[in-house]
């Protein structure tokens, strides 16, 4: 069995884009690939705990964390959110068709050995600390870590 490597940069923090990323990560892992997801910028919201702003932050960072609360269960659609109504409809459709939610996709990814890396520069920018993230995160690192993985990767995606 091959052990090809696959990397996904999760730059976006929206429900639809997170689902696309996890869908590919979980399929890749099922195909015997070694998958790493690198969460950066708005993607941090996907692996943040759902709690509101806490800890030491500047005023701007507080505002950003309140407006972009994050947490897998609080993500919004990138289009047709319509103040949350569109997202609500999408979530109920997903339930109807038994499609895994972002939280369930995260659990599935971890079960399959997908590695989660969080970008430390984005953390600094948004005033976030390691404790602000779910325990599923394996590593906090920067671009060199990503590129060293990606240079061995057969599939490298940016979502």
């Amino acid at each position: 069995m091959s052990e090809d490597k696959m990397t996904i940069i999760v730059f976006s923090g929206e429900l639809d884009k997170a689902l696309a990323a996890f869908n590919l990560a979980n399929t890749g892992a099922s195909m015997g690939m070694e998958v790493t997801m690198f969460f950066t910028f708005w993607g941090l919201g996907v692996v943040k705990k759902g709690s509101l702003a806490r800890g030491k932050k500047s005023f701007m960072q507080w505002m950003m964390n309140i407006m972009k609360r994050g947490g897998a269960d609080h993500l919004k659609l990138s289009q047709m959110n319509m103040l949350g109504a569109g997202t609500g409809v999408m979530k109920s459709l997903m339930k109807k068709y038994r499609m895994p939610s972002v939280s369930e996709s995260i659990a599935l990814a971890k079960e399959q050995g997908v590695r989660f890396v969080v970008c430390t520069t984005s953390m600094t920018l948004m005033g976030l600390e390691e404790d602000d993230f779910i325990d599923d995160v394996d590593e906090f690192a920067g671009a060199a870590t990503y590129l060293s993985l990606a240079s061995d990767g057969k599939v490298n995606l940016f979502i």
Partner: protein
Amino acid sequence: MKADHTLDCIGLYCPMPIVKTARKIKELAPGEVLKVISDDTGIKSDMPAWAKKTGNEYLGLEEDEGEIKVYVKKPAG
């Protein structure tokens, strides 16, 4: 076609049938055949692609009234 094990994926959509197949195949003894039943038409392309990538043998499919049965064999030894 005869199978040693069956995996029911009716009502599940991509990537779940593949994720479940990958999990199930680990339980099979070498040389055994798994039948996956799905109503997601994507499985027709996805299963051969998955099998090729993972070193399992895709044996073919049977289709009736929206139910697709795909067969994969775990390699012997």
